[in-house]
């Protein structure tokens, strides 16, 4: 009987989701604890040490934290670009059209990790409405290095929203960034524009600017383009988008980061 009690308890295991939630909670808490000053004498000592560090590091440290080194473009019709610093925290959010600016204003993403920020964005009321209306969402990642792109994409693909059939997560092409911004498009949307332009040379960035990703994709499909970037139109999944994007990103190595 004592063996039965042991076996009965042995079958009780912590659910994986419970462990993951706890890890995420600790990750967040530990970030806050590190930022919070300690009480009393230690607080003064910490403040002095912090001042000294600030003096030593000065503007360099400030720039290190607030400089975006990796970028994520989220495109539906609203297009936004999220700048991520070397500590994986969001430091800038730029809307690339009116809807994008509305979306950027509706959620507070700064200083959150990019994973948390994207989850918050995808769960927002505005994005939920787009997804309910069967719009396509393309998340294009541009890491500071190729390895960083792969790491970010892997993390993003683990998030629940990545399983949505209308959401594609992929790596971007660094070479396109400057041209995209010159054309007034986010680099994620610009890549869709290039794909469409290859099939229809008459199309302009201004024209694409007003189209949703679904409309662009439909035009590419109508022109007989290869279905490379979205699962909703070809039965592929986010991973295939990643593969395609990964191939692209080698083309543009060495160019500057976006000026977001």
């Amino acid at each position, binding site marked *: *009987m*004592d*063996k*039965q*009690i*042991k*076996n*009965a*308890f*042995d*079958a*009780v*295991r*912590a*659910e994986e989701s*419970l*462990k993951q*939630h*706890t*890890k995420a*909670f*600790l*990750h967040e*808490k*530990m970030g806050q*604890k590190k930022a919070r000053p300690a009480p009393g004498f230690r607080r003064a000592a910490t403040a002095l040490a912090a001042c000294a560090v600030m003096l030593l590091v000065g503007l360099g440290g400030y720039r290190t934290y607030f400089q975006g080194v990796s970028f994520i473009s989220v495109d539906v019709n609203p297009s936004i670009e999220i700048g991520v610093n070397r500590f994986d925290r969001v430091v800038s959010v730029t809307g690339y059209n009116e809807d994008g600016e509305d979306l950027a204003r509706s959620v507070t993403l700064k200083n959150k990790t990019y994973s948390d920020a994207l989850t918050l964005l995808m769960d927002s009321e505005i994005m939920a409405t787009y997804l309910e209306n069967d719009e396509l969402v393309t998340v294009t990642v541009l890491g500071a290095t190729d390895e960083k792109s792969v790491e970010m994409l892997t993390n993003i693909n683990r998030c629940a929203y990545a399983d949505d059939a209308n959401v594609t997560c992929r790596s971007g092409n660094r070479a396109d960034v400057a041209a995209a911004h010159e054309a007034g498009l986010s680099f994620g949307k610009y890549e869709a524009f290039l794909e469409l332009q290859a099939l229809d040379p008459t199309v302009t960035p201004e024209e694409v600017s007003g189209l949703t990703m679904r409309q662009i994709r439909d035009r590419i499909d109508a022109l007989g383009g290869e279905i490379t970037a979205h699962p909703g139109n070809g039965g592929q999944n986010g991973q295939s988008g990643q593969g395609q994007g990964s191939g692209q990103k080698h083309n543009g190595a060495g160019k500057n980061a976006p000026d977001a």
Partner: protein
Amino acid sequence: MRSEQEANRAIERYADTVRRICLIHLKSHADTEDIFQNVFLKYVLSSAVFENEEHEKAWFIRVTINACKDLLKSFFRSRSVPLDALAELPEETAPDLSHVLEAVLSLPKKYRDVIYLHYYEEQSAAEIGRILHKNENSVYTLLSRGRSLLREKLGGEAIG
């Protein structure tokens, strides 16, 4: 403060133990999640140095039991017997064992920890006494009464 890596290692190592103790005390998944966060955050913030794995495990058991009791003391918490926690058990729990768990969970609160620590964690009465802040004789008494009650509930099957 411990590192995130240490915290993750502790979660992987002790999550099942914490989960079992939560099952004994709590009735909802939300409460269990609260306890998980509370216990592992305490671990992260604790400066306790553990002599070995047993020592560390005993710390987790003690802290989890205390956290559960604190949570149940809270004014707004219901105090019902956590039988409905069984509904949240993993499906793979062998059906022929669920009545055993049900019997343990239906014991009065004061016997559950002792039965769990003795039968599952295989702790001695002295160790159980240290964890629960009771003297050894009280542990023997609780164990003996708990065992009798279990025997009744399980239809007189022999209990070791």
